[in-house]
């Protein structure tokens, strides 16, 4: 057996060479080259100036806010996304199809539009804000606004990950639990939830990963006050606008490495659960 046939399983279909060649070429110039340019620039900064940038109080505050708000938003999404996915998969109610289609709205709506729309609803004069503000609960131009925007954009990730997992659940397993005397709640906690755990984790991670990079929907509602409501992507933009390319590069590289780490974790989670399923 030749080395070539070990790398590519022989096939009578033509066009592998050109298709793969074009794929790798396009991938390289659009994705890999620019990303490596940033990492090369970051490496060129040297460790001390890199560290100095990302450990400055303003950056640390931005990271704390970004991670905190993203984690809260992802948790909200997992909680409510589970309820939404459950009702969409298991129940029927008027307008269900419309609701199902609307779940993807945050995907389809440009983030800038989402940003000004959320601000309009939750600011002092908004439909909802006018009731919250007098009660002393500030949403717009405060951290809750950031959580709101991040929840908005992360929702479809959770619902769309959970829906197929819920559909795949075997009714017979639940009936078996019922026949063995389990209450509905016991079945939910001990049979359904463990089966959904991989999907819940994946949904959380996808929502979280999307949230820490989000920019458009947040900048309008956050108020952008340094040390208070300034998120990491905004800080990158600010540094760029002040021609602080080194600072922007360091911050960008660090944020990207965190994103990749999350991506890697998602992959490992899915790989581990896929293996476990294959074994049974």
């Amino acid at each position: 057996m030749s080395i070539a046939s070990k790398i590519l399983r022989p096939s009578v279909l033509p066009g592998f060479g050109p298709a793969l060649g074009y794929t790798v070429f396009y991938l390289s110039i659009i994705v890999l080259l620019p990303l490596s340019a940033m990492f090369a620039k970051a490496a060129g900064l040297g460790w001390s100036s890199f560290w100095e940038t990302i450990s400055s109080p303003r950056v640390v505050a931005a990271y704390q806010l970004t991670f905190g708000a993203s984690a809260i938003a992802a948790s909200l999404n997992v909680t409510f996304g589970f309820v939404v996915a459950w009702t969409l998969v298991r129940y029927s109610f008027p307008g269900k199809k419309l609701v199902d289609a609307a779940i993807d709205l945050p995907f389809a709506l440009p983030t800038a539009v989402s940003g000004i729309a959320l601000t309009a609803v939750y600011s002092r004069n908004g439909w909802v804000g006018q009731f919250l503000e007098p009660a002393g609960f500030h949403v717009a131009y405060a951290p809750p606004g950031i959580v709101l925007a991040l929840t908005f954009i992360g929702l479809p990730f959770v619902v769309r990950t959970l829906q197929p997992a819920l559909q795949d659940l075997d009714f017979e397993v639940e009936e078996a639990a019922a026949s063995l005397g389990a209450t509905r709640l016991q079945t939910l906690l001990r049979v359904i939830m463990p089966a959904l755990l991989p999907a819940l984790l994946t949904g959380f991670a996808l929502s979280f990963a999307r949230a820490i990079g989000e920019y458009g929907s947040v900048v309008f509602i956050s108020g952008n006050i340094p040390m208070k409501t300034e998120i990491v992507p905004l800080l990158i933009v600010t540094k760029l606008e002040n021609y602080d390319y080194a600072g922007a590069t360091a911050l960008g590289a660090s944020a990207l490495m965190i994103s990749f780490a999350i991506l890697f974790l998602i992959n490992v989670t899915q790989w581990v659960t896929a293996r476990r399923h294959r074994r049974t």
Partner: protein
Amino acid sequence: MSIEVTGISKSFGSFRALNNVTLTVPSGELVALLGPSGSGKTTLLRIIAGLEQADAGSGAILFHDEDVARRDVRDRHVGFVFQHYALFRHMTVFQNVAFGLEVAPRKSRKSVADIRDRVRELLKLVQLEGYADRYPSQLSGGQRQRIALARALAVEPKVLLLDEPFGALDAKVRKELRAWLRRLHDEIHVTSVFVTHDQDEALEVSDQVVVMNEGHIEQIGTPEDIFHHPATEFVMRFLGDVNQFHGRVEAGHVHLGDVALPGLLAPEGAIDSATIFVRPHDIELDTRRNGHPVVEATVRRVYSAGPISRVELVMQTGQELAVTVPHDRVESLHLNTGSAVFVKLRRARVFA
């Protein structure tokens, strides 16, 4: 057009799918490649078609004395019927059958009217004239299979290759279709090779059967040959039920305990510990000795739903034996669980 395969080998990684296979398919015959899964039969068929390449340096594939091993699939003019039909799901039955005619090079392409006539003719041949405008998803499995066959025949292939043609069908349709395929072949006489793991299918449909196992050919012969004169232990076991037990053989006799039973084929030589094979229908049962050398046995169970009954015995040597006898015989001998019987072997085999 004859097909000649000489010394073909094929490996996938460290797995050797075919090991130096040589085979001749005479022109106009219908040949079955029979074997269990993993025996290499489908690989061999795909290599003949040109869908896979044999290992570099291994032998040749000749179509009518012409080497086609390096020739592209398109230029081999084979009709290939895929196991799961591989019908184009977005095309109607008509479009599927017409496809090969429509993609022909412009200079040899038939006119639209000729293509239409040819497709109609083929749909008639496979008895699906009324189905031209249906989509594959609207057909039953057997109908899809016949369309796949019509599509392959449309381009007037020199050889027809079928990969498990009835594998995905239920038992009743299988039976109907294989009789139909035999009649069709008698009508069109195109050299055909089909792959199957079903012995009944191979024995019933084909002119010649090629039994394959672990990448090599065990035996080639007519269905009668293969069934009645198996050349190897594998063929013996693969084609039909067989009793298998250990004993001593000598001078045409099988020694069980202290009894020497006649009936052993290949009587030369003596082996102290041989594996002896006897088909269930090659055993005679009686309740009297009649003076012949026999082995005593006890009936453990009788299964008699059907024209042929199956009797399970335990011989006095402790070995178990399954016997098939006509139901009438079971009744006349009054066989029941616990009955004592005498066993005689009609034909027994050992393989070196």
